[in-house]
Every structure is written in C-alpha cells, then in structure tokens.
C-alpha cells in the first residue's frame, strides 16, 4: 500500500509533464507506466518517426539534389537498415532516459505496472513483481490512445502493422499497402518510399488529409507524393486480405468494384482510439462518451472531482503538445490555482514531404464562426531566398485574417520546416496579433521565417517579393476601427 497526493497514470507527454509539475508544486507524486517511460510519443510515435523521416530525407537529398550541386557520390548509397533502426532506437532511448532522469530529479515515484481503478480513491497496480495498492488524493488519467484495428486486419506487427510495427521494420519492405491516408500513414509511407518501397495508399475519402488540414496544403503534398511514386487509391475501402505464397493480397472496393493489391506488408493507419476501455475507468464510475473519450470540463476534471483526465483520452485533437499543456494546467489546478483550458489554437504539424503545419482556423472554420469578411493570401516559398538556396521551394504560407480588424485567424503552411515556422503563427494568434504586427516585425534574412512576414504583407495587399497590385488598392490603410 502506497499513499500519494497525486498519482498520474501513464507517462506520455501528458502524464510525465503533469507529474513533474505536480512535484514542482510540492505534491508527493507518483507516475504509473506499464511500458516505456515517455509513452507512445517518445517510443513508438512522434520521436522515432521523426528519426526515420530525417534519415530518409537526407538520403533523398543525396540521391536527387547532390548531383545538381556538384556533389558526386561514387557508386550508390547503401542503406544499412539494421543500423538505421538501432540509431532510431537510440534516439528513443535517449529521450525516454531523459524523462526518467527528470522524474527522478523531481522526486517523482515511478511505478512500473498496469493500473486499474479499484475505487475512486485507490488503484491496483499489477506488475511482474506482484500486485500493489496505490492511493491518492488526486488522480490524473493520461493513458492515451491506441491505433484503431479494422475487421480483417488483425495486427501482428510483423506483416500487418500499426505505426508501431512499421517503425520497427528492420529490412526495407519491397511493397507496402497503407490503409488510411491520414497524417500517420502519410508520414510512414513517405519515408518508406524514399527507402525504395513501392507504396500504395488506400484512402476512403476523395483526397488526402481531408478535413484535417487546409485543402490547398494537402494538394501540394499529394502532388509531390505522386511524383515520388506513391500510388493513391481514393474512394477506396479495404475489405480484407489474404496471405499468398509471396506476400499478401489486399482487397479494396473502389466505386463498387473490387480490386486486388499485391503487397508484402500491410500498414493500417486509420486513426487512433482513446483507451477509455482500460484501467477500469468505467467501473470506477468515470463517465466516458460513446467514442470512449473521458468526459471532462474545461479544467479537465472528470465527473469525479478529484480525478482529472488529460491528453488523447479526454478528446481531440490527439496531439502530444495539447496533452503537455493540459498536464501543467491540471497540476496547477490541483494546487489551487485558478486555471482553465482556454488556448485559442493547438498548432498541428504533419511531417510529410513537404511538411504541413497550421495554427488557428481554416477558411471554412472562420466562416462557421461568423467571420464573413476575410482577407486571405499566400506567399510562395519559391520567392524566398533561403528556400531556393535549400533547393526546397514547394509550398507556401497562407494567412487568413478578419477583414474588419486585420486580426490573424489562421495560418497554414506547406513547405520546408513548416513545423518550425508555425510557432510564430501560434504566438501571433494567441496574442491576438493583427497582420500589421507580423508584417512590421523585422524578420532576419535570409531565413524561411521571412515567408511569415511576407505572407502578412501579401494579405495586406503589398508583399515585396511577389508581384501585387500597387498600394492604394483594396487594403491601403493600416488603421482599424476599434
């Protein structure tokens, strides 16, 4: 029997952050993890996929750009998949080890095992070393989500894989069929393609990333992926698979007709579902919705006042950084501070080639919110010196602002380092910045960041590095009615 002030269940980017902040605030804190510290993000999600994407991006550059730049490689580049995978693993281990150190340095008790609510005040934790009871005044559920499995495609994580299995491939598969053209499927498909795999993406919708990102951004990625040789089957439904002597046959239905796709590996990335069915959450009386998300209020408090839920388990968007933000907030709420989830935007990034990143609202979302008069414009990376010198000119920065106030409502980037550029947009939106605020901030040259400034100028009607109508046009004034 162990007794704590705060017990966090799950050590992903929500859980470990909540635990550290709880400890910083002086609570006797424990964190329970059944697998590796850091959760999906650090071990089988964000971090390992980025390692693979970075490596294959360099490979791609070497194969395609080096020659133009006069860098000639004698012979081909030999990909040693075993070393690549172990390097990727070392990245994960380093991160997970870092979490371990941070938790220990903050005197957080780390409990390895599987937790289940016994009552709303105590947990049973089962591990290889036995069963223990853990009690606490407050619980923070941060047990995350897992890949959705679809009928007929039971994961074996060798041939029929979720992202977890695909990230662990230690040989380069010859052929892969990816079911689901969302961001996870696209990220993995893109890097596999760069390794030489023949990839076919089966997507139920008519386009990639539909409803997730700005449609124009998705188009840029789709065009480049097609050029890279990824096959797309849109409006296609995966009906089943069959093992053959030289791999698998995936049966997909397109326009009512069945089509057979031959492959070696099948990657199923149709989304993630919250782990609301685990840890006896329902048995303890904690309310979940019909999709399995724990119901929480704006403080991430469940129907039971001393139990909180953060991250994927408590609702969309299922993103690590949202979970971390909630983790800090909940720990502070427990300590008596008046906090609430009132972020204006959760920036989202997709590590495709090129990357997509967005903050704030899409045009459709703005309209739905009642912003009828919008200013929308784009600035292309092709007009940015740094992008040209990097030989990565696909894409643009698109800005959406309220015409009445010039307040920035949404920024959508597709292009090189979009993931690193979007933070400025997120800050601008949180601060309630106007286009002028971004345009009048001096951005250093020569950087990709200049595209933000130029996009703001373009939206105001007078960017320097693209041809726009002379001043005196539609947006000649920078003053706004209060």
């Amino acid at each position, binding site marked *: 029997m162990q007794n704590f002030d705060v017990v966090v269940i799950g050590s992903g980017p929500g859980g470990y952050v909540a635990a550290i902040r709880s400890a910083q605030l002086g609570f006797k804190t424990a964190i329970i993890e059944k697998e590796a510290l850091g959760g999906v993000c650090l071990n089988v999600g964000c971090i390992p996929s980025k390692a693979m994407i970075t490596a294959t991006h360099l490979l791609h550059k070497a194969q395609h750009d080096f020659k133009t730049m006069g860098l000639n490689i004698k012979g081909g580049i030999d990909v040693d998949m075993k070393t690549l995978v172990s390097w990727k693993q070392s990245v994960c281990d380093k991160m997970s080890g870092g979490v371990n150190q941070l938790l220990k340095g903050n005197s957080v008790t780390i409990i390895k095992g599987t937790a289940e*609510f*016994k009552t*709303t005040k105590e947990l049973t934790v089962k591990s290889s070393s036995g069963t223990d009871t853990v009690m606490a005044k407050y619980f923070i559920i941060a047990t995350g989500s897992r890949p959705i499995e679809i009928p007929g495609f039971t994961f074996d994580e060798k041939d029929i894989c979720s992202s977890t299995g695909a990230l662990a491939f230690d040989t380069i598969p010859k052929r892969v069929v990816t079911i689901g053209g969302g961001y996870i499927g696209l990220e993995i498909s893109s890097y596999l393609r760069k390794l030489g795999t023949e990839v076919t993406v089966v997507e139920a919708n008519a386009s990639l990333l539909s409803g997730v990102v700005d449609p124009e951004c998705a188009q840029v990625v789709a065009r480049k992926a097609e050029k890279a040789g990824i096959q797309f089957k849109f409006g296609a439904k995966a009906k089943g698979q069959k093992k053959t002597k030289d791999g698998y046959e995936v049966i997909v239905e397109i326009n009512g007709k069945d089509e057979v796709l031959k492959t070696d590996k099948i990657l199923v990335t149709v989304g993630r579902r919250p782990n609301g069915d685990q840890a006896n959450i329902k048995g303890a009386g904690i309310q979940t919705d019909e999709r399995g998300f724990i119901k929480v209020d704006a*403080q991430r408090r469940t*129907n039971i*006042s001393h139990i909180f839920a953060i991250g994927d388990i408590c609702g969309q968007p299922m993103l690590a950084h949202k979970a971390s933000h909630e983790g800090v907030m909940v720990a502070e709420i427990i300590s008596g*501070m008046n906090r609430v*989830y009132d972020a204006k935007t959760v920036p989202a990034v997709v590590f495709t080639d090129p990357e997509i990143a967005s903050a704030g609202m899409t045009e459709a979302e703005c309209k739905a919110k009642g912003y009828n008069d919008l200013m929308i414009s784009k600035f292309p990376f092709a007009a940015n010196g740094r992008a040209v010198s990097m030989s990565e000119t696909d894409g643009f920065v698109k800005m959406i602002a309220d015409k009445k*106030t010039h307040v920035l409502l949404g920024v959508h980037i597709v292009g090189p380092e979009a993931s690193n550029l979007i933070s400025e947009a997120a800050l601008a939106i949180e601060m309630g910045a106007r286009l002028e605020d971004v345009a009048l901030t001096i951005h250093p040259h020569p950087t990709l960041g200049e595209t933000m400034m130029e996009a703001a100028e373009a939206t105001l009607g007078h960017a320097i590095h693209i041809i726009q109508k002379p001043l005196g046009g539609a947006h000649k004034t920078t003053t706004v009615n209060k």
Partner: protein
Amino acid sequence: MTDIRLPELGEGVTEGELVKWLVKPGDTVKADQTVAEIMTDKATVEVPTPVAGTIKELLFKPGQIIKVESVIVKLELGAATTATAMTTAHKPAAPVAATNSTATVDVKLPELGEGVTEGELVKWTVNIGDAVKADQTVAEIMTDKATVEVPTPTAGIVKELKFKKGDIIKVESVILTLSGSVSTSTQPQAHANSHATKPTTTTAAPTLMMAHTTASSSASLFPPVADSKVLATPATRRLAREMGVDINGLSGSGLAGRVTREDVLSAKGGSAALTKDTGSGAVSAGTPTMNFPKPAYNSTNAALEERVDLVGIRKKIAQNMQMSKAVIPHFTLMDEVDVTQLVAIRESVKDFAEKNGTKITYLPIVMKALIATIKEFPMFNASIDDANSQIVYKKYFNIGFAADTPNGLVVPVIKNADQKTILEISKEILDLSKRARDGKLKPDEMKGSTITITNIGSVGGMYATPIINHPEVAILGMYKIQDKPIIKDGQLAAIKVMNYTITADHRLIDGAVAANFLKSFFAKIQNPGVLMMGLT
C-alpha cells in the same frame, strides 16, 4: 477523508464572510445538510455539504473571509451511513449486501441534453420495493425535445419515489432513493463481465461518484472560459482568471478591441463598473471605472470608538450608492395624492386576499400603477449605456422594491411584473421580503430590475430624496397615508392622502416630463378605476 469546499456563491462572487458554523467537529451530517452560513456582498448563503459523513475539522472561524473553492471542512466520508460502508469499500471480500443494507443512495435526474433543464415525469418503470440493477431504466421523462429513459447509475432497492406522474422535474433533482444494495446473488449478474472484486467497486464507487458529482457541479468554473473571439494575450487571460474577472464581459480598450492588462486591472478595481451584467435581461450602463478618493478617518478619541470592517452587504451598498450619486444627476419631484378610493378598494379585497392565503398591501397596486405609467413614459424604464453613448429602452418590466433587512438595504425584484396579477405579486412580495430579512435571497432574485420603488414611508417621514438604483434612471418613493381635511363643495371633508416622490436621472428625464409622469401616475392612484382600464 474528504475536503468540503466553499461552492460558488453566485455570479461574480469570489469570497464570503463566515457568519457561523451550524456543525461542530464530531457531528455526523447528511448529504445536503447546511454546515455554515456565509455572507457575501449580495446575500447570506447557506452552504451544504455535498456528502454525508462525520465532521473532522472546521478550517475557518466566524468573521473570516473565505475564497470560493477553499476547503472549509474536513469530513470523514460516509460515516453517517455507519462505519461499515467504509469497510466494504476497502475489503473486497466482504459480503456487500449484508453490510450495506442501511445505506441509501440518491438517484438524481441526469442531464437530459444540451439546454434542457427540466422534464415531465411520464411514468415510473419501477415501484417501491423493487430491486434494480445499475443502468436499469427507472423512469421515462419527457422533455421539449424527446422522451428519455432515465437509468439508475447504481443498483439497490427502490425506497422512495420523489415525484408523481406529470410533475416537472429539474435536472439534478433527486428523483428516487435506493436503499443499500440488492442481494449478492443478483449483483454480479448486473456486472456479468466484471472481475471478482467488481461488486465492491460498483457499490462503493457510485456512492462516492454521486457525492463528488454534486461537489464538482456546484464548484463550476468561475470566471467562465474566455470565448475564442476575445482578443487578449494568454497572460492577460490568466490574469483575469486569477483576479476573478470575467474577460468575456470586458470591452477592450486596445486596438481592434483588445482587452489589455490595464482593462483587467481596472475592471477588478472598479468592481463591476466595466463588466457587462449578464444577469436576467439587465443591461449594464457601462459606466467608466470610478476611482473614488479614499480619505482616512484619523481617530482622535480611539478609546471611545469601535472599528468594524466595511464588508459584505454594507460595502456593496456603499459602493452602489457612491457610484449612483457620482454618475447620475439626480432630481426629485414631490407631491401628495388623494388615496381615499385606493384605501377603500384595498379594504374591500382584504377578505378575498386572506381566503387566497395572502395579504394585500399597497405596494403591488402601486407597482401596477407604476407599470401602466412607465408604459406611457418609456424613458423611465431605461438605462444609459455610457460606454456606447446610447439609451437602452427596456421592453420588460422588472420592478425592484427596497427592503430593509438586519444586514442593510437589499432590492428584491419582481420579474415581469406586468404579466402578473396583483394577487401573484402580493404573494411574491411577501415571500421575497421574508427571505430578504432572513438573508436567504438568491443573487438572481436581486438582479435585473428596470425601475425601483422605495417604501420607507411605511416607517415614517413625509418625503425623502432617494438614490437611484444605477443603472436604472428613476426611483419611485411612497410614503405614509394620512387623514387630511379639505374643503369640498364648500364643505369640510376628510380624505386620505399619500405622499409620493419620483427621483429621476436628469440626463434622460426633464423636470416637466417627471411632472407629467407623476400626474399620469396620480390619475391611476387617485382613481383605481382608471388603473383597471389599463390592466391586461
């Protein structure tokens, strides 16, 4: 051990003064039993415990100021339902039915859908004495959207059904109570898929859960979450939250309407001056923040003086009066009117009123006459929105009446008085006055008045010059009824007269208008027949 926190006391109320404890350590309390009385600047509020148990510790002393959400009581859970209930929670092997049989569980009407606050009981699907399983439907409730089956979240034996068919039930009301749990033989069936320790979990957990649900719903968020359209930096949003300022109600002074740090600070400093009143239909005048001088009083004879903190209702009154006098250029018009007929009419309906279980005073009749008159003079039922330089004419008639209470002046409000009969208004006045004296008015019942009547004449004094209840623009004063001799048709005659004052905001209402207003009002008071012509 469970912490009982000070629940939300009303919109905009962040703290209250502990008047007294109604329990002491060692007492066993039932769920919803009042444990303390807290005085806020609006009213005295009874604070209930959301859970049953034994009081272990009281964390504040009377007179202390307590912030909302502070822990006020430490409580040993469930002890009131005997210690065995606790035992079962911790000992998985204990036979649940035997030990738990004395415990009762309240089943509440759950949320029925967004925006639905109540529903009509169509029928019970269980009877008293029935054993029910968790999730079994116990009632059918019809809302304006659909008929909903209401399940019980926990198993037990139905002990009491709290409503009858056809009753309108508010969400969160207790609809039935369950006693203990059903026999151990039926319980596992209710959770056929659960593991061995589950029966304990399910009996113990829901009890806790329901208790805590109450706790969390009563401790809902204040200030409300900032709307996504509010323009304010994250740091400013946090500042507003920490200072208890509802940022949604601020009109930002920054470019493009941005709410600045200064806006938040001054909103807090100037109390409600800058905030929008989100109360029932009330419109804020949006007066600029007032910074009044704060002269000290330097005691020269401190030994013979007593210093008391200016807090609670007194402080609120002080602030309101100061602001009203500072903002509104007041003027008062006084006159007397013959109320002989009015007195006779009131006498004639006394018996009727008593048969209907109430007492008719002059106030409801005066209220009707006032409404009839302000319908002719809409500027009396208006507010000035200083921030936007606009006059707000109100098409609803919520009449406030000043009530003297041991704690000071409060103004309960008869909402939509134009739609109520004199009898209904009478009953409401009696009820509100009684609760005002007892300090038990809800904040809602003191909000949203569009014009106010003050009746200090019932105590004494010929005339007064009342202060307008800002953001209203007028206040009607009514005074003592007296016998007065007059010369009528050359003869000496005795009539009854009553003095009235109308105090108005000269920014909106001119003297001649007020005189005409009083004339029209008097026509109705003098001859209640005229008033009746206008009654709907």
